[in-house]
């Protein structure tokens, strides 16, 4: 699924790096625990999280995550957005809860990481 399609499904707002129109999201993983995220191969995987700080961005940088779905109406600050741009990461902001976001993506055919 394309990044813009996901944004549309969750009534999201796109910030950070410019959208790669060809990038395919196939899987999702939901966590607020960054070392949990660093356990896995995150290729073609969107991270669904409510953790909104610089460490979210650093973790995604190390894990090669290109798309973050940030729930609970969290608002990334300029520092985070700069880090996102620097590391080619797109942030989709949504006011929905993590449970709702996960349900929507699952229902739309996005696969769980495990």
């Amino acid at each position: 699924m394309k990044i813009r399609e996901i944004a549309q499904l969750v009534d999201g707002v796109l910030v950070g790096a410019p959208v790669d129109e060809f990038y395919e999201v196939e899987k999702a993983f939901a966590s607020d625990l960054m070392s949990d995220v660093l356990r896995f191969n995150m290729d073609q995987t969107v991270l669904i999280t409510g953790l909104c700080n610089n460490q979210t961005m650093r973790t995604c940088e190390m894990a090669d995550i290109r798309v973050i779905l940030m729930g609970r109406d969290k608002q990334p600050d300029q520092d985070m957005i700069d880090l996102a741009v620097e590391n080619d990461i797109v942030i989709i902001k949504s006011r929905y809860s993590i449970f709702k976001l996960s349900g929507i993506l699952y229902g739309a055919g996005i696969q769980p990481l495990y």
Partner: protein
Amino acid sequence: MHYTFKIERGNFTDAGQASSSVKRTLKQLGVDPVNIKRTVVALFEAEINAVAHAYGGTIDVDIDGEKIVMVVADEGPGIPNIDLAMQEGWSTASPQVREMGYGAGMGLPNIKKNTDDLKIDTKIGVGTTVTMTVYLT
């Protein structure tokens, strides 16, 4: 090549900068993506541990054609029981550290998994030195 970085106690705004810088360097050197990820995940976990559980310290990275050696040395409380600390899920992270997104008790296991060699020297009340090696071949 040799690189040195400083780690500041409790600074979660900047934590990860050293690992980020090493990642950029490895990309420029043309190291393959799998080895880059292994290296930076391990280094990042060790860097965060020095910020979260100790009072800061230094990172030394040596890169040659066949291996990457990373030494993260902190001043801090030390690790009383390394076997316990190595277990998945074991964590003594403070509420402040948990708020930053850490405390799963997965950092040291992640380091173990991603490196070819891991050595932890620790002294109670003095500090901890984590030495990690990734072979590039």
